[in-house]
């Protein structure tokens, strides 16, 4: 029979658990639930109107101009996710491998690779805006200096380059994170196993594909899921570098910017609409939760316990 009497220990545990639980309930659970509720009402600015059921969801998904804005923003999130998967996580893996093999200067590079991660996104955004400045930016000046003047571009002003410029800035900023996680995973691989491989083959490629990659699967799960969530919640960097409108003409628009514009309005839009904004937020939340769940389950299944 378990004792329900509050002992000193029980009191302690209660006292420690209740405040954070209340905090989470108040500031995380409650806002999420109220956003759910908001999405089912008609809004006149910040004034709640009548209950409209699924109308707001229908509008953002199927009624023009919202439908094409939603599709446009969503497609950019998908591009960002896959591009960063290669540029950020892929490069991160190979950087981690190089650091783990202790190539010359590994100690310096370990710090250098991770350093940008500690910078604020706002700073990185402004920094890259300066780098990519059409007249004085270091990118265009270097290109001109190397005699490649015709490659100098207004990077952030063209639909063909703007999104990729943002992706590159993000990859530069965050590549240290997957590197660090993969490196930690690699350092857990037992040396006996590596010695055994060395007897069999001298090929680095075989070592990477047959031993290292399968054994860092838990790290991969973590960085993949975090990248997925990050790519679909992408906001700060596009906001700083391209502005709320996803300039130029929506070619850097992502769900985060689109949600913000819809719910809170911006200088050049008409009315703010909390109902449509909330409906978007709910859709984004559900999409991320479901897909991130599936990815996690699938990736966990291939992890090998050491």
């Amino acid at each position, binding site marked *: 029979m378990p004792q329900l009497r509050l002992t000193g220990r029980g009191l302690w545990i209660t006292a420690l658990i209740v405040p954070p639980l209340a905090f989470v309930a108040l500031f995380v659970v409650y806002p999420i639930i109220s956003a759910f509720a908001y999405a089912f009402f008609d809004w*006149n*600015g*910040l*004034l709640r109107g009548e209950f409209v059921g699924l109308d707001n969801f229908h509008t953002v998904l199927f009624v*023009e*101009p*919202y439908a094409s804005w939603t599709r446009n923003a969503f497609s950019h999130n998908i591009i960002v996710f896959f591009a960063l998967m290669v540029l950020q996580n892929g490069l991160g893996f190979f950087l981690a491998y190089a650091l783990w093999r202790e190539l010359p200067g590994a100690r310096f590079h370990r710090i250098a690779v991770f350093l940008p991660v500690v910078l604020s996104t706002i700073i990185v955004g402004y920094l890259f*805006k300066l780098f*990519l*400045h*059409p*007249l004085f930016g270091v990118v*265009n000046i270097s290109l001109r200096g190397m005699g490649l003047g015709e490659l*100098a*571009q*207004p*990077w*952030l*002003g*063209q*639909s063909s380059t703007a999104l990729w410029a943002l992706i590159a800035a993000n990859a530069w900023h965050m590549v240290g994170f997957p590197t660090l996680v993969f490196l930690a995973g690699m350092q857990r691989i037992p040396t006996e196993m590596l010695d055994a491989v060395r007897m069999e083959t001298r090929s680095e490629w075989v070592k990477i594909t047959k031993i290292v990659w399968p054994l860092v699967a838990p790290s991969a799960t973590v960085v993949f899921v975090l990248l997925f969530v990050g790519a679909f919640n992408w906001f700060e960097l596009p906001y700083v570098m391209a*502005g709320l*409108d996803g*300039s*130029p*003409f*929506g070619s850097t628009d992502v769900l985060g910017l689109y949600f913000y514009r819809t719910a*809170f*309005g911006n*200088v*050049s*839009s*008409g*009315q*703010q*609409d909390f109902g449509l904004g909330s409906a978007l937020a709910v859709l984004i939340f559900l999409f991320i939760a479901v897909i991130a769940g599936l990815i996690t389950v699938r990736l966990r299944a291939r992890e090998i316990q050491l």
Partner: protein
Amino acid sequence: MPSTIIRIGAALAAMSVAAPAMAQDLTFWSWRQEDRAQYEQFIDTFEAANPGITVTLETFEATNYNTILATALAGGSGPDLMMVRAYGGLESIAVPGYLEPLTTETVPALADYTPEALAAETVRADGKVYAVPFASQTQLVIYNKKIFDDAGLSEPQTWDEFMALSQKLKDSGIIPIANGTATAWQNETVTFDFVSSLMGKDFVADIMSGETDFTDERFTSALAALKDLSQYFPDGFIGLDYASAQQLFSSGMAAMFGGGSYELATFRAQNPDLELGVFAAPGRTAEDEKLVALYFDGGYAANAAGANKEAALKFINYLASTEFGQAFADNLNNISTAPGVTFQDPLLAEVAELNATSIPYLFLVNFRYGEPSGSVLIQSEVQKLFAGETTPEAAGQAITDGLKVWYEPFQD
């Protein structure tokens, strides 16, 4: 003796009961944090002339002001007096009935305001004025007088002169026009800074009356001219943001900047040595009217549910007066909309003069009442035009089609 005490006590009690009725406290909300000191002065002037009424100013951050005000009004804790936005921004709080309608009976000075100014603070559905408009902004061309003088140039009278003058500046190694269009809203401003005169008053009148749409040749040919003019913008201007463009001009690297009258103060602050001039970009021939684009910033409104409405209206009347308008223009360097104001600052006087021949800043004034707003459409279409991803005709078509969703005159 005790009777004296009782008498004093009774007098005190009577005073404490009467006091709230005598002294009327009003709250006044504003988004102009930077103008706080000047507004305190205006309020002092009012309080000196109206003993018994006190006005307390509260200022909020501009970008969040609408949200804060709308929430407070909806929750019944709004201020007695407030600055409100114009056009669509006014409607969002006036339509739910939070604002006291103003008439020429309650605010006689309104009779002398221009119809355009009053229209900015009028709800389209009921035709009532809800606020006293306080300032106008003008979209025009700002230029560096020194560069013009050194190159022996003068304000252009025709579009061809404008192009030739820009070419001359470019040949001498000066950036003719500083604007960059990576910042979305700059695409809307440059359109009206440079090609308002090419669109012409008739086109705007026809648009307002629903007789034509943006596929009109007068509009598309103006866009074509704008695209042509953009060869005199900085290299890679489509990737240049607003702040960088301003710096190109204020540092003296560029000769002209298409901007608003609100920019003059910024340029003076960035470079006090700059000699500024303003002109309205020319039409095709010297006879064509040179037009600037005009809009109104916002107004002063009273709370319909305020407790001291009579006192609030007194303050509104003060804000609508020429006396206040003059103080506003002198102290805040803004174009006051109050009738009979004269401008000491020569640049402001010139802007006020240019305002006499103007068209409305069309997309803000008439097309921000639905989604997608006309501003969003013209910004992205002009941005596409500059990037070479659309033609003037296709842009006009896209703007018309976009507006069709909610703008009834375009639906047929």
